[in-house]
């Protein structure tokens, strides 16, 4: 089975490719370039196309599929109405699926499941990464706030941290938010050193 993975994000495409390559009877083609996309698809003549929902070439690809109905290898939006739940799940996972006419749902399902899993896993990784980056940024802000307090009040580092912590507890806010307020106030006072 010839499968095209169309995703401008090469890292995600390779994670999907990796997942699908563990399944039997799959010949995989990864397309990450916008230029010449339709010509490549025509050349590959895939049985299934997976494309991320955020891909700006979706309308162009769907137009090609409409035209392709006149060709020997017609492809349509996945799938017939009886598989509406599968489409909904696929859309929820962030992937649109197009299949060649006549391909049985039984053959599509395992591929679709794997692709959806990988899409979701990628989305999870991204969220975690964003959170981790957020935490790093927060730690940065707390360090800055500590330095400000140390400098302006002449206290030690543990004492500066204890003050931030005390304020956070007494006002039911997060330390990072208090630190952010300290840094902002300090900047507004015109001394950003």
């Amino acid at each position, binding site marked *: 089975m010839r499968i095209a993975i169309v995703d401008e994000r090469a890292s995600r495409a390779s994670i999907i490719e990796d997942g699908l390559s563990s399944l039997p009877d799959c010949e995989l083609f990864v397309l990450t370039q916008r230029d010449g996309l339709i010509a490549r698809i025509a050349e590959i003549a895939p049985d299934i196309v997976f494309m991320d929902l*955020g891909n700006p070439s979706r309308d162009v690809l769907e137009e090609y599929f409409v035209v392709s109905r006149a060709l020997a290898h017609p492809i349509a939006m996945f799938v017939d109405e009886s598989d509406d739940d599968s489409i909904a799940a696929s*859309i*929820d996972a962030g992937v649109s699926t197009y299949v060649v006419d006549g391909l049985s749902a039984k053959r599509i399902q395992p591929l679709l499941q794997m692709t959806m899993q990988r899409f979701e896993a990628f989305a999870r990784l991204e969220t975690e990464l964003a959170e981790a980056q957020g935490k790093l940024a927060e730690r940065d802000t707390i360090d800055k706030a500590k330095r400000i307090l140390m400098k302006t009040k002449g206290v030690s580092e543990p004492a500066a941290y204890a003050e931030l912590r005390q304020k956070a507890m007494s006002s039911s806010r997060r330390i990072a938010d208090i630190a952010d307020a300290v840094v902002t106030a300090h900047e507004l006072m015109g001394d950003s050193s």
Partner: protein
Amino acid sequence: MTQRLTIGFLPLVDACLPILAHEHGFAEEEGLELTFVRDVSWATVLDRLLYGHSDAAHLLAPLAIATTLGRGRPAQRLAAPFVLGLNGNAVTVSNTLAEALGCEGALGDPQALGERLKAVAAERQAQGRALRFGVVHRYSSHNYMLRYWLAGCGIRPDEDVEIVTIAPPFSADALKAGEIDGSCVGEPWNSIAVENGAGQIVLATAQIWRRGVEKVLALRAERLDEIRPAIEGLIRAMRRTGKHFVDPANWDTNAAILSRPEYCDAPHTLVRRAISDRLVLTHGGEEREYPDFMFQYHEAANFPWVSQAEWLYSQLVRWDGLGYDSDAAHAAARVFRPDVYRSALAATNDPLPTASSKVEGSVSEALQASTQHGTILLENNTFFDGRSFDPDRLEDYIAAQI
């Protein structure tokens, strides 16, 4: 209690009414909290609508009809209780083609421009490199307006030129790279092409059909039934927004909001051009006013006339190579829901036409349309070729199309 509505949109200036209804608090006053999902393809806007990621969407009117008729995917009934605006699109051509057409930084007369284009198209066809135009979607008013104009000038859209689908954000680059010779897209993408030196604006779609229906607010028909009070509130909020939107005093504020990254993500000056009906047609040129370039409010512009849906159906069958089918025609007509628009605004002073259909293209002089509070004037609703569309004679109109 506040009701949340999620609205899908593409970053285009004509997504303005729901966005500004939110930003100016008109939606909130109707008890609505709007959240927006921005996408980069119509396919994804539609998927989110069909599979419940959004409650309503900024959608191409012909796509709402095509989806209902099951063109390209299994049929799903959509409803459009509100027209988000009329026109607002333009034809932009490469600098080379503009020169060949003798455009001198002015919007051409559609008929005269079409005649010159016909000659150039024949020349290019003879050289084996037919002129190629980009449109945003097969089922778009851009496609139908462009084709109506070409065909009306004796240029057969599928034989004498080539029409391809291209995502609006890439049309300027495609023009510059010579992949296409012209495009019909919405703003700000024509202005961006001009600004990048990729091409020149030569025609506004308002010159092809002065009151051409453009985007609609679309929902699944079942979803509309479920949340109808909220949608009626949204309609009221968007009418108030429209009044605010067309007031020159608010152009700057509104352009600033719409140009933000989470909305159109485009330069303020370019967004303002569309809003103010003042386009710059050539790189480095002066702003020129073309009244009614975008038409978002007056003359009950948001009223979903059933005759507009029927005209779009006539173009769908024309270019999809289908014949008239009374069931399909009826289903297409039912997509536009003047009944919902009327009940939403019944208790307001907003003029509500008492008829649901009108002869399109017949108004070369102002026409009085009756409303619940007397009459409103409908001005200048003409097609460039002087033809008119009588919805009572839909089948004849379709039969007479080439």
